[in-house]
């Protein structure tokens, strides 16, 4: 058993850390977040050159064909850098849904363009009810045409196509399709913009295998947890660095236990989020029986942890943490947006409850001995 990263996984993570630090430092993030879309075409080209846009896409469609663990390592570093723009929406969200739900021809057409860095994409799911529960959706297709409004759609304004989750399937809508109207919503995350997307008798292409949706959203959720973990790591580091240098009463404030213990809790929650997220990615890769639950465990934990880590980080920074010029609020803002995205802690707790309370009583006798191995297998 080896929970640690393999050599090639560690190299990937280190490479990503260096790449993001060099190509998208926080000063650049601040610049691009003042634009309407936070999309930087030059940065996108470089992401594609690194192969990052095709990290998880199968090789036959022009991707690198790497696994879920590699995907989350890359997303963790993107989160650490507060990477702006549609990378998560395109690669982790739309890319995985198309890979899981598309026919071979659709994958070739759409996934190939994503992998090559030629197209941006996103997924539209949530409606007015504000819920990630597929059962709550109202929009259905009528003869392959969509009508209705989706909300909280990330990066829709720069998407070349939008993957739409409807009651009766998963559809693909071209950004230039008639009857499509995209309007900015004023979300808290300044580095990832959200939009309302309105369809009015808009032509849509049904993806061939909509049953793949749940699995794909699990992968996207694990990737989001990784991004959140990266953000927590950066928040922790900024905070510890500040506690070592800021002096009061003639001493660095980090010498006081009231401050140290806040930092210790930030560390505990960051590391625990990382453990749960890595496990979820591995469970998805291996398709273990607890894979879906492990994703909910990770998202539930990370959703609360990201907020707590931010709360503590701002508190330790004192007045400085409350200023616009300090970077910590940029991470805090994303933490809140990510907390609700793909389901908040309450949503995932109910999902866990269905699996451990309701399913366990529906006659599926749990085999205790199978839980013996560390990996629940």
């Amino acid at each position: 058993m080896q929970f640690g990263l393999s050599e090639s996984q560690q190299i990937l993570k280190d490479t990503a850390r260096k790449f993001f630090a060099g190509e998208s430092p926080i000063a650049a993030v601040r610049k691009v977040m003042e634009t309407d879309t936070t999309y930087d075409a030059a940065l996108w080209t470089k992401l594609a050159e690194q192969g990052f846009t095709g990290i998880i896409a199968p090789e036959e469609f022009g991707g690198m064909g790497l696994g879920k663990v590699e995907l989350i390592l890359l997303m963790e570093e993107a989160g650490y850098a507060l990477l702006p723009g549609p990378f998560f929406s395109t690669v982790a969200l739309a890319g995985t849904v198309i890979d899981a739900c598309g026919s071979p021809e659709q994958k070739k057409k759409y996934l190939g363009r994503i992998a090559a860095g030629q197209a941006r994409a996103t997924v539209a799911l949530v409606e007015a009810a504000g819920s990630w529960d597929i059962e709550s959706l109202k929009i259905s297709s009528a003869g392959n045409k969509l009508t209705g409004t989706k909300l909280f759609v990330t990066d829709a304004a720069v998407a070349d196509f939008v993957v739409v989750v409807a009651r009766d399937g998963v559809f693909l809508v071209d950004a230039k399709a008639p009857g499509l109207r995209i309007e900015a919503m004023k979300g808290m995350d300044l580095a990832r913009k959200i939009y309302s997307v309105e369809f009015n008798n808009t032509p849509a292409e049904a993806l061939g295998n909509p049953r793949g949706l749940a699995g794909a959203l699990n992968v996207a959720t694990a990737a989001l947890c990784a991004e959140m973990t990266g953000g927590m790591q950066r928040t922790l580091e900024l905070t510890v660095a500040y506690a070592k240098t800021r002096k009061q009463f003639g001493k660095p404030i980090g010498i006081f236990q009231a401050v140290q213990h806040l930092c210790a809790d930030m560390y505990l929650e960051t590391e625990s989020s990382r453990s749960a997220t890595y496990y979820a990615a591995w469970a998805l890769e291996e398709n273990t029986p607890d894979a879906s639950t492990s994703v909910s465990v990770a998202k539930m934990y990370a959703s609360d942890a990201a907020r707590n880590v931010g709360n503590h980080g701002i508190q330790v920074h004192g007045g400085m943490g409350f200023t616009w010029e300090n970077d910590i609020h940029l991470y805090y803002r994303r933490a809140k947006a990510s907390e609700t995205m793909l389901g908040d802690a309450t949503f995932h707790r109910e999902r866990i409850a269905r699996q451990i309370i309701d399913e366990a009583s529906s006659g599926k006798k749990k085999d205790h001995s199978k839980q013996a191995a560390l990996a629940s297998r």
Partner: protein
Amino acid sequence: MDLNLSPEEIRFRDELRTWLAANAPTDWDERREESMETRFEYLKRWQRKLYEGGWAGISWPKEYGGRGASLMEQVIFWQEMALAQAPPLANVLGLGIIGPTIIAFGTEAQKKRHLAKILSAEEIWCQGFSEPDAGSDLANVRCEARLDGDHYVVNGQKVWNSYGWAAHWCELVVRTDPNVPKHKGLTVLLVDMKTPGVEVRPLRQMTGETEFNELFFHDVRIPVTNVVGKVNEGWGVAMGTLMHERGTFGAGLQITYRRNMERLINLAKTTERNGRPSSEDPVIRQKLAQCYAEIEVMRCNQMRAFSRINATGVPGPEGSIQKIFWSELNQRFQQVAQEVMGPYGQLEAGDEHAIDNGMWAYGYLRSRGNTIEAGTSEIQRNIIGHFVLGLPKSY
């Protein structure tokens, strides 16, 4: 990253699982009403059986009667013990802490004299570390040992000692030099509990039990041949010992938590809230799921920590998150259990209405000790602050 067990690990697990299925007693839980002494004799017999089967002290080197088990095999051992609901080990301190200390620091004569009897539970061991003024600040030990010929004469007091009432031997930390900085004047002695001047007084705790004792030493004469390691270098010996305590044992704890969780879910299905089973109440569902998830996160954290120990050879200071995690999680879990049971949660063993013969009332009270024993949560957070995050030392 590969969390699957290797073929050798699976072979080890299956061999142990088969042995436990044939040999582990299943009636331990039913003996809660028996006296402490009777229960302890039972545990000694159980350890003897493990010893004869070759399963006691598996982490010890083969030359000292162990199996030289790898870290992962130790993890599997504790998991399988918990899965089989096997009774605990009578000589848990001897096997987990004191034996390894004697192996690492002891003389050949000490090894020959003690190790086999630790494995077989013929001799039970306890530790004399904490004192009234040396708790979190362990180096502040005052219990003194004065050299008199070829003996040390020990005077002082120890507290929070487990198993003292049953122990034949004690690993004792004493001050041999009061004139040097406090970490430097300490020595570890092996003390025969039958030596004149040793007194054990049970300490009744808030659960009503007497898990712990006070030890008193009045002019107790200990041969100098019973020093472990070097004189005045006892701090290193004692700390090496404590590192073992934060080892693989937690792997079994996680499985015990998981079993308690399943038990609580079943209870939630049979108790009522607002006219329907508690398990259908949205608030209770949220709380149960939260506990379940935290127990899972504990497992993920453990796997990462064990992997790291495997790779680097030593548990790092980041092991401190494990202690905080399991102790605070158990307190939250016990409170949720109380909420599921409502007024029944308070009923202690012996009450005819008590659920599971009062195990939940006991668990609730006992969990308050979790964030204190084996290093308080505050000390653990200090360790993370200073040794992991590099913040200046606060004390």
